[in-house]
């Protein structure tokens, strides 16, 4: 059994999980949602094994090229989702969430992403690679759950305004989005900004260079800081909060993805 086989099995299991959640969405019974969560957890376990195997095969952290880091992002997102789902029961977010996970897995397995493990360039040979990337992506994984619950909030609140009830009330969605940001924000601050600065100082001799990736992670941080301040100090809730959380996630994704392809800088290793 090698890593690419496990990756493929994981991919299939996530598709099955999304399928269960979709059935739940249409027949509105609890059972398929339970099956969805169960298969997702199974997928998570096999995905973990795939990442461990990748680490052993390549001899370095499993997020040094786009394929690896997309796979890790999908893993972290499913982990975040499973935690939130067990804790707060957000079945309804399941189908949408797993569509995103499948999209990430599909991009990762596209032929455009080189899959072979290449030896690390000197700058990446550091344990800060582990700390910086894993904690940052874990933070972004929670932002991705907040993104889905915020988007669902917008639908649920417009439905409620028309007088229709929903199984997951907009108030709860708003609250869960905040919980996700409350987990994601400290993780992103620690992994993305603080560990990033420490590593930059060790490798490049300067903790901050206004490199586009650095700047965009600061922009992401500012957007979520805005989310927290408008919410806690000015009492914003609901629609406006949800919109800021959505913008924050898009900024995080641009930092992760867009900067590599659209803006050049120090972080462009591959």
């Amino acid at each position: 059994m090698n890593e690419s086989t496990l990756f493929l099995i994981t991919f299939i299991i996530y598709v099955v999980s999304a399928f269960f959640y979709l059935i739940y969405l249409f027949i509105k019974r609890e059972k398929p949602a339970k099956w969805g969560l169960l298969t997702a957890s199974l997928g998570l376990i096999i995905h973990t094994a795939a990442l461990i195997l990748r680490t052993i095969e390549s001899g370095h952290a499993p997020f040094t090229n786009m394929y690896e880091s997309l796979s890790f992002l999908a893993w972290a997102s499913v982990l975040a989702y499973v935690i939130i789902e067990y804790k707060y029961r957000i079945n309804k977010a399941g189908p949408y969430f797993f569509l995103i996970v499948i999209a990430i897995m599909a991009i990762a397995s596209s032929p455009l992403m080189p899959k072979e493990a290449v030896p690390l360039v000197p700058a990446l040979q550091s344990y800060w690679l582990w700390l910086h990337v894993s904690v940052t992506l874990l933070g972004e994984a929670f932002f991705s759950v907040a993104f889905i619950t915020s988007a669902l909030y917008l639908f649920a609140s417009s439905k409620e305004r028309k007088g229709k009830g929903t199984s997951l009330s907009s108030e709860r969605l708003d609250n869960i989005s905040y919980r996700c940001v409350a987990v994601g924000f400290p993780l992103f601050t620690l992994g993305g900004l603080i560990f990033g600065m420490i590593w930059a100082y060790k490798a490049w001799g300067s903790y901050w260079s206004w490199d586009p990736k650095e700047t965009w992670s600061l922009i992401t941080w500012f957007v979520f800081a805005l989310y927290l301040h408008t919410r806690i100090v000015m009492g914003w809730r609901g629609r406006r909060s949800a919109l800021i959380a959505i913008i924050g996630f898009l900024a995080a994704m641009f930092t992760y993805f867009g900067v590599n392809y659209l803006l050049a800088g120090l972080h462009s290793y591959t």
Partner: protein
Amino acid sequence: MTDWSSESQMKRLIGFFSSVKLAIALIIIITLVSVLGTLVPQQRSLEEYAEHYGRLSQLLTKSGFTDVYHSWWFIALLVFFSLNIIVCTLKRLSPKLRRAFNPSMEFEPKSLLSMKNKDRFSRKAGLSATQDAVEKELSSRYYRVKTRQKNNRLFFLGRKRIMGLFGSDIVHLGLLVILLGGIISGLAGFRTNLNITEGEILTVPHAEFQLKLDKFNTEYYPDGRIKDWKSTLTVIENEAPIRTQVIEVNHPLSHKGYVFYQSSYGWDWDNPQLEVWAKKSSDPDFLERLDLQLGKPARMDENLTISVLHFIPDFIINENNEITTRSLEPNNPAAFIEGWEGEEKIFSGWIFARYPDFGRIHSEKETDLTFELKDFKALQYSGIQAAKDPGVNFIWAGCTVLMIGLILAFYWPPKEIKAILEESQGRTEVTAGGTSSKNRETFASEFKEFMTSLRRSP
């Protein structure tokens, strides 16, 4: 009429900086400006901007948009932002301090019952027995308890995780320390690149010590990719070696506030040592080995002198038909040689180390000599970045404080349980209420549990 006295102006200024709306506006403006700074390439040459933006380039460079993060108006924004954070934080601090260190007791059972979590029951026990039970139940849950007595009434205030009140203030403090560190780095920081060859001793600018490169080597992976660069450096103070350390990427050397990073490497191509072989097409046994240096003619026989005029490590002819080097790596080394007999030039042309048959020798006079560039050597240098950054310690301190603040703000919510006991006719009436600013569900179950065990306690 407007009051323009200095005191009221000060008040107006503080009022301006204490507004949360200003904070929100500043966050949005700084974010948008930062986005702009990533869309316009920063710190490039004037020519590049002229080529890219045409007439707009003048406007862009003058307004600072080509170096946003160091422009006066961006720094002004950051100063405004810092002032805003300071005033906002201080303004909210004093009521919090009062709440933390001088909390008010609640003396009315009615107001306890208006709290989010509340409960009331009466038990068949005396006042002091109930007091023991309340104190025990609170302190076993790590609440710190304050008690007051008035006649037959007892008042309790149990609190824990009071530091959580200050989470956001500590985050702001950390952020200010980081900004301060950034200012110090910008003003007092210093950075330079040193190219140093093996055996060379360099004086570090502004420092009272020297640096010697003992050894430099490049390590490769089996497939030929570069694995690492390693420089063995010795610090020399007053002519005496103090310490020796191998530095590599990600592992710098620190000495007296200076940090030395492995940042690049290269060859001193201005002074190469070349070995050129001369052959004769008419005589297969003829072979003459020549050791040549740039600009130093060497005698081949009594009449002929050979000299190297140019050396190029990575020969290429660019689109303007100019000979140039593609990189500083020795990928396609080439030398331009000339042969002279007295005052008369016999031949000249390029010879290539990798392509011996490609040599282009133009003969002015008939000769059957051919030349091959057999070997080339140049001293390799290690590129070392020397940096002194007194701001960096502020940055790490600020980051630590900021992180502690975030954890306090999100995961250390202050909790309060207040209780009032009233004794009448051998029974004690217990009224209790509790609040927590965050994690309300967890606190609600904690409060419930507290009341349940209070009811059960003897």
